[in-house]
């Protein structure tokens, strides 16, 4: 197989583009796709400061590498979740990546600062760990961005993540979620703008990018995520993709193009009645935001 651009021997095939690339042309392709997403959805404007939410995995470290390589002023934010050896190894990968490149890393350790860890939060609330983890991340990413004066929070959600979430939301017709599943959430009502610059790249692309860039990322799966519903959706979509390359891309981007607007009123209705959280002042529809309510319950 030869590279589509330069005809050198290829190292990576992208079936959804019916193309193969050598290492150099593939890295360029990744940068082009991120640049295209940023421009297409007006994600980051010139001169803006970006906070990249980094976990030590391939997507977030790949994103941080891409953004800094493309000239953006991007610092990292690492959240300590207290998930045993998995968190220790994830932090090691993140700190090493930042040190080797001389990048600024902001760290927030949930057990130290808030007195609980994710496994304990799951036990107390009797919900899946991903629930407490997700809401803590959303809250603390935003808080760190607002506190640090950043314009934008960038996360490593890729095409596979977005297609899997869309698939889950469509299977149950969760219309309020469909209305706000966008690659950019504007910075309004006390929230920093949230952007997903990797939506045009799949997770296989990100893993390949990291291998070819020599990025040493956390290879182990989060012990709490094993067997969760989100991973099941990804496997189902990959089974379709294998027979019909390009399906994931079409599913997500055609949704944005043709259907997303139809669900916008429901998402906007949810935004009405927002008021400051009694605990942290972040906008919420209840007296306490979901994170402050979690802290009150888990670490009173």
């Amino acid at each position, binding site marked *: 197989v030869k590279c589509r651009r330069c005809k050198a021997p290829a*190292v*990576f095939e992208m079936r959804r583009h019916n193309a193969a690339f050598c290492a150099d042309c593939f890295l360029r392709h990744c940068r082009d796709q991120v640049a295209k997403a940023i421009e297409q959805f007006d994600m980051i404007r010139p001169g803006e400061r970006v906070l990249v939410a980094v976990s030590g995995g391939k997507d977030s470290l790949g994103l941080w590498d891409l953004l800094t390589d493309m000239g953006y002023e991007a610092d990292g934010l690492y959240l300590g979740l207290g998930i045993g050896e998995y968190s220790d190894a994830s932090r090691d990968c993140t700190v090493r990546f930042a040190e080797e490149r001389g990048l600024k890393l902001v760290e927030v350790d949930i057990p130290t600062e808030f007195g609980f860890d994710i496994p304990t939060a799951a036990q107390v609330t009797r919900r899946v760990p*991903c629930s407490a*983890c997700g809401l803590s991340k959303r809250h603390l990413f935003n808080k760190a961005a607002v506190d640090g004066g950043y314009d934008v929070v960038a996360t490593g959600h890729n095409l596979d*993540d977005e297609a899997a979430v869309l698939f889950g939301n469509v299977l149950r017709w969760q219309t309020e979620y469909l209305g706000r599943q966008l690659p950019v959430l504007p910075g309004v009502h006390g929230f920093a703008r949230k952007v997903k610059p990797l939506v045009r790249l799949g997770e*296989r692309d990100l893993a390949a990018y990291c*291998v070819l860039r020599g990025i040493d990322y956390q290879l182990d799966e989060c012990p709490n995520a094993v067997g969760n519903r*989100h991973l099941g959706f990804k496997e189902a979509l*990959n089974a379709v*993709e294998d027979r019909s390359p390009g399906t994931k891309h079409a599913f997500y981007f055609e949704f944005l193009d043709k259907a997303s607007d139809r669900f916008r009123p429901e998402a906007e209705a949810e935004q009405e009645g927002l008021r400051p959280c009694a605990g942290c002042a972040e906008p919420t529809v209840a007296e306490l935001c979901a994170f402050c309510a979690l802290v009150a319950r888990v670490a009173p």
Partner: protein
Amino acid sequence: VKVLLRNPRRELDVPGPIRVHSLLEKLDINRESVLVIRGDTLVTGDALLEDSDSVEVRPVISGGAQ
């Protein structure tokens, strides 16, 4: 061919020569969900692996709920 698999980590010996896509079929692995790595680079599906080769089959699917 020495084949390193992950999650859980284990090693297999598969007789070569064998093409990468045949190896993945033999192991019943969906090619969309892994990378095949030889040394510090990647190999495409048509690459021929010899008996003396060592490769890693690395899963790429990750993530919890958002």
